């Protein structure tokens, strides 16, 4: 989890003490994870970009308040999830989570436009990515959220439970159902 042997907690601490340089490796390290979590939950790239900016602005602003009693990723994904829920509540431009399959078409277009990928590779990538996006779109929201939190945030069941304010057992069930459902959907596709 470290680029230069420095933990997330050390980097955010350095940033809070005024070392602007510490923010860059921190951002780079978690950029894709946070973005994928947001994008695959809201199902819209533009909204994910907006939320991404809000999340990291909040991280920069509240860095001085971060207390290393929990892992940085737990804090980061808590912020990300709260921002996402706020966004849904305020009914911003939001593609229905159940219409994520529609977004898969966009992914397909992007993948086929990838210059370095040959035709065969493009098909394979397209299929896998599209299948994944569609399968995620078919999960109930709570299950998808829990699964994405765990896999993108590299979080434990306990940490996911804390972030989602659910009990350990509920979280564990959601994760189990999510994986079972994803396995079914992906095997159907295969």
């Amino acid at each position, binding site marked *: 989890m470290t680029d230069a042997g420095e933990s997330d*907690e050390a980097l955010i601490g350095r940033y809070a003490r005024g070392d602007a*340089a510490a923010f860059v490796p921190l951002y780079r390290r978690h950029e894709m994870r946070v973005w994928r979590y947001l994008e695959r939950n809201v199902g819209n790239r533009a909204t994910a970009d907006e939320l991404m900016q809000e999340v990291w602005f909040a991280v920069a602003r509240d860095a001085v308040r971060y207390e290393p009693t929990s892992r940085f990723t737990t804090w980061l994904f808590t912020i990300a999830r709260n921002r996402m829920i706020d966004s849904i509540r305020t009914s911003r431009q939001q593609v229905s989570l159940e219409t994520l399959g529609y977004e898969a078409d966009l992914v397909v277009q992007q993948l086929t436009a990838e210059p370095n990928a040959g035709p065969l590779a493009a098909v394979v990538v397209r299929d896998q*990515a599209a299948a994944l996006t569609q399968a995620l779109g078919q999960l109930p929201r709570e299950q998808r959220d829990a699964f994405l939190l765990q896999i993108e945030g590299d979080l434990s069941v306990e940490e996911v439970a804390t972030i989602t304010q659910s009990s350990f057992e509920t979280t564990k069930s959601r994760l189990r159902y999510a994986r079972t459902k994803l396995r079914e959907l992906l095997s159907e596709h295969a």
Partner: protein
Amino acid sequence: MSKVPPSQEQPDDVDDQYRRASALDPSRPSEAVRRAVLAHAAQLVAQRATRDEGSMIKSTRRAVNPAWWRPAILGTLAAAALAGLVVAPRFLALRSLPATATPSAEGSVAAPTLVAQAPDTRTDERAASAPAAGPESTAKPRASTRSADMPTARARPKVNAPVRDGPAPVVAETASAAPRARGEAQSTDATGAGLEARQRRAPGNTSATTAITAVPRLGAAVTPTDAAVDPAAAFRRAAEMGDLSGLKALLEKQADIDSRDAVGRTALMLATLHGQSNAVAVLLAYGADPNAADADGTTPLQAAKAGDHPAIVAALQRYGAR
């Protein structure tokens, strides 16, 4: 805070499938988001530093003032009382004994009235007033020096704060007027070979010369046509010339910060090879990948060490370069 891997369930094939598909998924957050986030983060640090310095000055004043004004007032009162004790008996003595006043006492007391009585003593008056004005005139510069110092002292944190806080883009830009001017002058008639030749000839640009000697291929990949047509090529050119205003302008136009030339060199690598430390600082602050190696596998840190650019080495290491 624990770095122990999270207590997940057993590794799942679904997780593997998810990760494989994610790795193949080219979707990414936009460059604009990254730039906005990193610029905002750097700006916040600079603002915090300025605010902290300001509050320190205020708190210092609060702490100093009470201790200062009491002795000052007491001293003034004591001096006035002493003067009263010394001067008052003389006035009283003169009024009561005008005929017996000594010449020296008479002169000293009558001196102020001479100015009004004798018109031809103006020269003397001016001469006399000159020394009187002397202390004032010497006092004024002192006062003005103080008043000039005060704002300087207050302004100092604003100027220094970003420098202390790292290579914030704005500061780096202001700190490098010379390279920018040089870069702009060069960019007026930019031709690839001509630029390099000029850089070799440029006095004081020994670091760039060293870098060019060390890396013979430098600049060969970007042609003037590329720079004119391709924003990424123009961006790399601006980086290697240390043209900070050009860099910033192109970053605002969404130029890919980690774009590569034909031999895999990013703008950061080119700036490093040319010893453009300010350009390196700007690129790092805007999120350039500090570990982006070229086609030969040389990283910017290795290039900076080989080119003997300790400032760039330090900057790269601060941003996690390996």
